[in-house]
């Protein structure tokens, strides 16, 4: 079986996987980091979004072996101890979640947006969220959360 090594949230990790093991399975089942969710499992809903070498990607559509040697950041890697990341804080302040299932992916996708396009307009924010589906909020408070984080990140 192939062995993969990568940096996850700043820590060097490695493990044995099958060729067909998905990155999200490696994170959840090998590393027991269950913050990254599997929603649709068909690369549409975005609950599984993580950062790979600084870019947001859908970890349900990436093989663990394809992520060998990369630098991965998951939702667990954002907060600094007990201090939430400004994006997480913004989601809390603005009620940017209800059931919370899509939230890890939303937050990871939003952080990637604000890093790359800090002054994104409301329209650009909504376009960017194309790959993240939320069944509860109607997106309005998610957009408000991201707009707050644009000021605080």
């Amino acid at each position, binding site marked *: 079986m*192939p062995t993969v090594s990568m940096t996850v949230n700043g820590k060097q990790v490695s493990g044995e996987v*099958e*060729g*067909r093991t998905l990155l999200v399975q490696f994170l959840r089942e090998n590393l027991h980091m269950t913050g990254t969710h599997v929603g649709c*499992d*068909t*690369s*549409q809903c*975005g609950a599984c*979004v993580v950062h790979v070498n600084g*870019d*947001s*990607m*859908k970890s349900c*559509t*990436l*093989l663990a*072996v*394809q992520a*060998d040697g990369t630098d991965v950041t998951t939702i667990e890697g954002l907060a600094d101890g007990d201090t939430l990341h400004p994006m997480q804080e913004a989601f809390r302040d603005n009620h940017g979640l209800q059931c919370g299932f899509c939230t890890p992916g939303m937050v990871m*996708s939003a952080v*990637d*947006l604000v890093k790359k396009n800090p002054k994104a307009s409301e329209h650009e924010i909504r376009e*960017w969220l*194309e*790959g*993240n589906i939320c069944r509860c909020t109607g997106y309005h408070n998610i957009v408000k959360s991201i707009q707050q984080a644009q000021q605080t990140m």
Partner: protein
Amino acid sequence: MYDFAYHKPSSVADAVAARSGAEDGTYVAGGMTLVPTLKQRLAQPSDLVDLGGVGELKGISVSGNTVTIKAMTTHAAVANSSEVQAAIPALAALAGGIGDPQVRNRGTIGGSIANNDPAADYPAACLALGATIKTDKRELSADDFFTGLFETALEDGEMVVSISFPKPEKAAYQKFDNPASRYALVGVFAAKTGSGARVAVTGAGQDGVFRVPAMESALSTNWSAGAVDGIAVDAGTLNADIHASAEYRAHLITVMAKRAVSAAG
């Protein structure tokens, strides 16, 4: 997903060797189509040859009037490239409209055209701009490369290395996308080139991407939205599915062609 043997070569030569040594192998570029296909058990390759580690397959260069994009360049890299934005803005805009941001961070131009999905965006750009596709063995014109539904002229084991786009005088791509998948219900790429106008349609054809000669000759004499106003593609050659009838697609082709010509200016 069925399991497979995984290879991660670091050069084109090693990738070709790994692929030819496999019983029933396949290349994987970004995997944005192949990984979902494997998950649904619609394919069962013996070996997966991952091109993600082949550095010589990445990058964008502009030389004179030609933009060359290597096969493993992501959609996001093309969309954000100041060189592509300056030389062929329509191509950068097309790349920025594929799928969603996470797909654009992973999916590649080489993977897209080798797959030749009938609703993919890049094949329309290749055909309308008269691109040249370079493989590990030869060079092919886009007209010869795309041969049918999910079919290309690539032989077993042959790999796309780069795509060269001649800079048009003006061009634009307009897509009427499915609101859920963002795949093109109809996408029209119109280009005014030194040797006349070229119009390519994706999302609609029963045999995949195709050109519209009647629109091309009208636009070659008169580059204006009005020139294609009355020109319709025969619905008998178009797809019909739960998203749109063939007649609706035929209507959309003319509308999108007019919008593309207007957008190109």
